[in-house]
């Protein structure tokens, strides 16, 4: 049984591609990992080490080929696609490298989106919560701008607000500052840190940037599909 304080629990997780074919490749070889509430961890490692694959598994965008994965103590192996989608939508927030807002919507509507797909229809509370978050990330005045008219740093702030709107237990950030200049990157990082402290939201940040990794509480290093180091900073 999973500990209730474990936001994330992976034990002996494997991931292969081309299962059953002669070209079968195993990317992750038995990953064991636990993240507790309020942790701010960096996942580092060279290209091709399996970071993205691991992040996809943790984000429930993909399924492991072996092992056990639980989010908030809830095992995921028995869930069907809709079950996984719902769990992902409610418990996990995503911040991608390329911001990935939906250009047809305004900043506010992009932040509302996870709640909208979860509840089916917009309501006043959704709007309020999204507006408050946008104020917090410093974009209160731009909430009605179309997403496409915001700068890179602003878009990433909107993406962070969007990741938080469902009050998830875990936020997964894939190179969140990779596309930003140093100034914007610092701002975005500081914002995530602030939220982590204020809300006790767990963050797992994939990064190549040693400067950024230095500022996280925990380093998890992945090499060739295995965790080779896991140490507090």
């Amino acid at each position, binding site marked *: 049984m999973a500990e209730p304080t474990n936001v994330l629990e992976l034990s002996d997780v494997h991931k292969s591609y081309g299962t059953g074919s002669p070209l079968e490749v195993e990317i992750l070889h038995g990953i064991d990992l636990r993240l507790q509430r309020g942790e701010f961890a960096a996942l580092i490692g060279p290209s091709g080490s399996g970071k993205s694959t691991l992040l996809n598994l943790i984000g429930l965008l993909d399924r492991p080929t072996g092992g056990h994965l639980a989010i908030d103590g809830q095992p995921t192996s028995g869930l069907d696609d809709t079950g996984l989608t719902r769990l992902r939508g409610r418990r996990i927030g995503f911040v991608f490298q390329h911001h*990935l807002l939906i250009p047809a919507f305004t900043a506010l509507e992009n932040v509302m989106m996870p709640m909208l*797909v979860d509840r089916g229809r*917009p309501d006043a509370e959704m709007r309020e919560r999204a507006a408050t978050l946008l104020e917090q990330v410093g974009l209160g005045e731009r909430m009605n701008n179309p997403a496409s008219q915001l700068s890179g740093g602003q878009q990433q702030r909107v993406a962070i607000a969007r990741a938080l709107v469902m009050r998830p237990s875990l936020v997964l950030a894939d190179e969140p500052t990779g596309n930003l200049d140093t100034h914007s990157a610092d701002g975005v990082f500081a914002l995530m840190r602030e939220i982590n402290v204020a809300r006790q939201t767990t963050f797992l940040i994939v990064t190549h940037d040693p400067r950024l990794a230095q500022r996280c509480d925990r380093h998890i290093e992945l090499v060739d599909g295995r965790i080779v180091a896991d140490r507090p900073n």
Partner: protein
Amino acid sequence: MHPWLPFEWIAATRFLREGRMQSLLIIVGVGVGVSVIVFMSALLSGLQSNLVKRTLSSQAHIVLLPPEEVARPQRDDDGDLGPLLQKQAQRLRSIDQWQKIRDRLGALPEIAAVSPVASGPAFAVRGDANKSVTLLGIEPEHYTRIIALDEKIVAGKLRLNAGDTVIGIELAKDLGAGVGDKLRLNSGSGATDTLTITGLFDLGNKGVNARNVYVGLRSAQTLLDLVGGISSFDLSLVDIYSAETLAQHLAAETGLQADSWIKTNAQFFTALTSQRISSNVIRFFVGLSVAFGIASVLVVSVVQRAKEIGILRAMGATRGQLLRTFLLQGGIVGLCGSMIGSALAALFLALWQTLARNPDGTPLFVISVEPSLVFIAAAGATLVGTLAAFIPARRAAGLDPVVAIRG
């Protein structure tokens, strides 16, 4: 974002609005297709109903006649058939038990009106003029429900008491007679009667206007030596296109000979039918090309939006929600297209009506876009759009978010 709108509707309309040119082009494309269908349907149904109306203005939908008399072959002592069988001449006879048959026919829901008719050949004589005519003995109150003779009276009125007659304008011209003049009728059986002309009709057909002479049923019975009898029933139907089936059914039921307007105007009806089939074929293919147009635009849109679809999936949108979002886009394109199409069709029809005119300046015939036609076009186009969106929608729903986000 209106609070009562579901996510699927919001996303579908935003995606369409964002893809401006693409959406506009396909909606106009659908509109052109729908306008062809609506224009053609309105034109054709106007043309057909006009032709049918003209054809049926002077004939009953079904005429029931006494069965043909058949000569029965005689057998000799050995039981062999005689060597010669001569066809029997058909004499004017009454329908047996016609009152009972009339009541039974009147009770059938498919039949709108029944009118007994006593008709036969006669000569109309006035002064030196002598014209061969068809004498029709009718009960005006029943007959006018089949052929609107009362509306076709151009002089006098439709009054057929004993001693009255109503004749066509051509016959009146030939005989030099008018309302109030006397007319002598000699029937084939040798009976003679002198009648007063109470009205002149114009049924829109020169032959009918020159030939038909209407008298009261009783006068005709006396003249034709059919006392108490009738020679045929004229029927009008609720659904004129069921005439032939119903005629066969009635023939079997009553033992009478039943001639439907479809059989008596076989060539005309074949022309109508083939026109309808060819228009259906055209409609089908126009509909098909509209469907392909919508499908191809949405397939491209799914490819273009793969990343956004991936993000939506990551944020918790289910496959079902994405499937419905894209189905809705197809439906909306169909619906908007059908509105443009109906407006275009109304425009074409107005133009057509001003251009296609008789030499005297009156329209060739009246056509209008029925509200039901617009409704059917809208419903049809929405359905076609939704069906056409099915393949792209399934692709959108089936996208692997990992692959989609990575792009």
